[in-house]
Structure formats: structure tokens, C-alpha cells
């Protein structure tokens, strides 16, 4: 029980600390810190949503941007036309979940590389179509722009990060999540002990899509002006992938650690190198996949476990 309690307590303490941050906004540098933390929180939500499927079930979804974009587009369209934010967010999340079901049901029947390629194709279809149907920049109307403050955006991002992390924590400890991991490790064995592989991964896919849609909604509420097709850009797939692998794929804490490191690195590198910082991220990503498949979380864990003792990792170890 103690081992269950400790991470939850640490999580709540972190949450309380983050909730107090807007109070510092008046201090010098406080606003910059607040908007940086807001981005960290949004990226945690997005990365965690990818992790729900990609980490725990091992299905590499290369079309995650589709669900992020759908959520962003729906929330933006409804909210700027007078729908209350909560209803718009619910609609964006629901639409992303429905699309998750529509796309996931056939896509999860695909074998080998076809799942990754198929999801990539879906995201491209939506990106091109969104760019054609909504060619104009989605700028905030003047009355909404006049009322723009950072604090509510921050709290929404915090809520999204907490929600997605709670879902990941639930998956890591629940019967459903253990079934999911069993399917990831060996589908035939999982089926033979009574786990419905297809049902498990489909539910994870829908959950992942819904959470990505919610994260997209948070982005639409936060961002002042963007082209609708930008919310479907492959970067919204690549960034969460990099964050998840950086932190530790298939772990609850990985996406949090990854998002902090990713945005700190991006801040430092983009200032000095401009666009070229993407090169470093690409190389870093490849290096992690090849050399450190468990990410930072695994590296720290290995360093903490004394050599010679049998490492008993409580959280699920990543595949490969």
C-alpha cells in the first residue's frame, strides 16, 4: 500500500505547487514562468494521451495530430461563436473520441507496419482537408481578445495534465491496463488467458484520441491566432512521441519528465539555433530509440538500483 500511496502523494504535492504558480505572475519573470509552465502542462496532456495507446499497448500511432487537430478545430469554432467553453471542450473531446472509434476499429485490425502508415495517412487526409475547407487564420474575435488573461488558460492546462496523468496512472495499475500490457508483450498469450486483445487496444485508442482532443481544446483556448491546418501538423505527433520516449515510454511519470526536459531544451536551443534546433531533437529521438529505449525514467531507475540486486520495477517496463 505504501508504494501505491507515495507516487499519488508526490503527484498531489506537485499539483498544489503548480496551482499556486499564477500568484507569482506579478513578480518579475513570473509571467514568463507561467506561460512556460502552461506549455509544459499542455505538452504533458498531449504526450500522456499518446502514451495511453503507444506506451501501454505498444501501438505506434503516427496520426495523433489528427485527434489533437479535431479537438482544437471544434473547440475553436464553437467557442468563438458563443458556445460556453465547457460545452465546446466536451464537444471537441467527444468528436475526437468518435473519430477514434471510427478510425481505430478498422486500423487496429492492421498488422505490422500498416497501423502506423494507416494512421499517418488519416492525419494527412485531415490536414489537407482542414487547410482547404478552413483556409483563413483562426484569430480571436476582438471581445474575446480583450478579455484574454493567462490564468484561466493555465488552470485548464493544469486540469488537462492532471486528468491525462490520472488516466495513465489508472491504466498502469488497473486490471484493464495489465490486460493491455499483456497484449503488448504477447498477443497470443494474452488471448489465451482470456484478454480480449482487440477490445482492449480499441478502448485504449478511443481514450487516447479523446484525451488528445481535449488537449487540442486546451490549445485552441490558449492560442491567440493559428491556421486550422497548423493544429493538424505532423509536429503534433512528433513532439509527444519525442517527449514520451525522452521521459520513458509506457510509464506514468515519463511524459511529465519528458515534457519538462523537452520544453527546457527547446527554449534554450530555439533561442540560439532557430529552426536548426529541430535537427537536435531528431537526432536525440533516434539516439533514444536506439540506445535508451526506457528513457530518462528507466536510466534514473537503473542508477538507483544497486548493481547486483534484482531490479523490481513496479511500473511496467517498456517494450523492446
Amino acid at each position, binding site marked *: 500500500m505504501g508504494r501505491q500511496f507515495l507516487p499519488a502523494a508526490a503527484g498531489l504535492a506537485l499539483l498544489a505547487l503548480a496551482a499556486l504558480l499564477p500568484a507569482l505572475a506579478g513578480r518579475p519573470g513570473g509571467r514568463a514562468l507561467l506561460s512556460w509552465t502552461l506549455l509544459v502542462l499542455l505538452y504533458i496532456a498531449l504526450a500522456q494521451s499518446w502514451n495511453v495507446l503507444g506506451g501501454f499497448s505498444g501501438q505506434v500511432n503516427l496520426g495523433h495530430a489528427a485527434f489533437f487537430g479535431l479537438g482544437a478545430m471544434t473547440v475553436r469554432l464553437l467557442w468563438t461563436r458563443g458556445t460556453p467553453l465547457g460545452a465546446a471542450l466536451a464537444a471537441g473531446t467527444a468528436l475526437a473520441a468518435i473519430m477514434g472509434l471510427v478510425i481505430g476499429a478498422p486500423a487496429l485490425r492492421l498488422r505490422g507496419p500498416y497501423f502506423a502508415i494507416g494512421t*499517418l495517412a488519416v492525419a494527412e487526409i485531415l490536414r489537407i482537408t482542414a487547410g482547404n475547407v478552413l483556409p483563413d487564420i483562426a484569430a480571436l474575435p476582438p471581445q474575446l481578445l480583450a478579455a484574454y488573461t493567462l490564468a484561466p488558460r493555465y488552470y485548464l492546462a493544469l486540469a488537462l495534465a492532471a486528468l491525462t496523468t490520472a488516466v495513465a496512472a489508472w491504466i498502469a495499475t488497473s486490471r484493464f491496463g495489465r490486460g493491455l500490457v499483456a497484449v503488448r508483450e504477447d498477443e497470443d498469450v494474452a488471448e489465451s488467458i482470456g484478454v480480449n486483445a482487440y477490445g482492449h487496444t480499441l478502448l485504449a485508442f478511443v481514450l487516447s484520441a479523446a484525451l488528445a482532443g481535449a488537449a487540442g481544446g486546451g490549445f485552441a483556448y490558449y492560442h491567440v491566432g493559428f491556421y486550422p491546418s497548423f493544429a493538424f501538423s505532423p509536429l503534433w505527433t512528433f513532439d509527444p512521441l519525442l517527449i514520451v520516449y525522452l521521459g520513458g515510454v509506457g510509464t506514468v511519470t515519463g511524459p511529465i519528465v519528458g515534457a519538462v526536459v523537452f520544453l527546457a531544451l527547446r527554449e534554450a536551443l530555439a533561442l540560439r539555433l532557430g529552426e536548426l534546433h529541430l535537427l537536435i531533437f531528431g537526432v536525440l529521438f533516434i539516439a533514444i530509440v*536506439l540506445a535508451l529505449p526506457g528513457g530518462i525514467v528507466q536510466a534514473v531507475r537503473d542508477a538507483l538500483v544497486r548493481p547486483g540486486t534484482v531490479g523490481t520495477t513496479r511500473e511496467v517496463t517498456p517494450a523492446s
Partner: protein
Amino acid sequence: MLNVAHGELIMLGGYAAFWLFTLWHLDPFASVLPAGGLLFVVGIILYRVLFSRLLHASDETKIKNSILIGFGLALVLQTVAIAAWTGDERAVTTAYAGAVLRAGGIVVPLARLGGLAAAFVIVMLLHVFLHHTYPGRAIRATADDVDAASLAGIPVPTVFLLAFGLGSALAGAAGTLAAVTDTVSPSIGLAWTLKALIVVVLGGLGSVAGAFAAGLGLGVAESVSGVLLGNAYREVMGLVLFLAVLALRPRGVFARG
């Protein structure tokens, strides 16, 4: 193994054609060979440094990690291209760029006809290589059954290296041919990767003739939908077609069982 950065190699081939033409006025059709050779070397290096590390992983890990590596590689190559040559769209404007062939009421641009002819020659050469030379047969044997190929004395790691280099060289050649009729920019990679995957899946993995037929089919489907739905939706049509086929044949069109 699957390289989802294949379109970025095509992009590099396109740039090779552009620079050879701009600096030395080399015709893009003539730069098929140097660009192919250059990309062969690039492919060999990429394989040696990155993909060869997956050789001994399980099948599932091999596919998954090659996809992930390719995804990162695509970002790297795009960023390098932007840094080296800016994000501008480049075009190769040959003397015969506007020339057309008229046959009855049909007008065919010569450059596109030449591209088709060159592609046809390359595909024929590939077919001959794969079916009538020792290295080609070794590639096909390894694709069929790695263990059996290894037992028969085929140097499997070398074959993988050769196949990867060959694939990259063909991407380079395709890039130069694409540069004859289309503009080149750092971001064209993903669209070409998807086109390549669509063609391979529709035509059947490892089938040269099938890929040729599927390539023609995809071109026709894109053109027809361009006329019917507007040019903006050309690529969407190809992707929808691809998804429809995948949904009906989850293991690929020509897979057994």
C-alpha cells in the same frame, strides 16, 4: 524494415537534380545517375549508422523501431535541407519545359512523357537486376526467408545493406525525375513517402510489376479526382483509396492468408 524517411531521400534527389542543373546545366534526365549514386552512398551510411542496429531485434521491434527512426530521420533531413537551401520552392526549368506532343485532341507535355519513359527503363533494369543477377536473387531470397537464405550461404547483413542502398539510389533517381515536372522544397518528403507506401501496398510488397501497375493506377486516380474534386484534393483521394484497400485487406493486398 521500413524507412518512413524515404520521401526525404526523394527530396534530396530532387535537390541534387536542381543543383546539378543550376550550377552545371546538367539535364535532370542525365542527373539520374549521379543523383542515384549519391543517394546510394547516403543510404549505405544511414543503414550502417542507424538501421543496421536493428538487424538482430525481433520482427516486431525491427518494424516498430525502424518506423520510429525513420520518423526522427525525416525531421533531421528536412531541417538540414531548410538550413542548407532555405524553405523556398525550387524548380528546374529546362528548354523543353513547355513543349508538348499533340496526338489528335490529346496534349501531352514532353517532359512528363520523358519522365514516364525514364521511370519505365529504371523499373525494367530493376526487374532484370532482381531476377537475373546473383545479388538481386540474394535480395529476393533474403526477403522471402532470412534464415533459409543465411543457411544457403547468403551474407544476409551485406544483402540488407545493398538493398537499403539500392532503395535509396532509386529514391534519388525518382527525385530527379520528379524535379523535371514538380517543384522541390524541404517539405515534400511526407507526401512522397505516402505515395510510395500506397503504391507498394496496392501493388504487393516485393513485386516490381505490381508496383508499376499500382503506380500508374494511383496516378490515374489522383488525376481523375483532381478534375472531379479540384486539385487540392488530389492527394486526399489517393490516401482514401489506400485506407479503403487496407480496411478490406488488413495484411496488405497480395498477402497470403
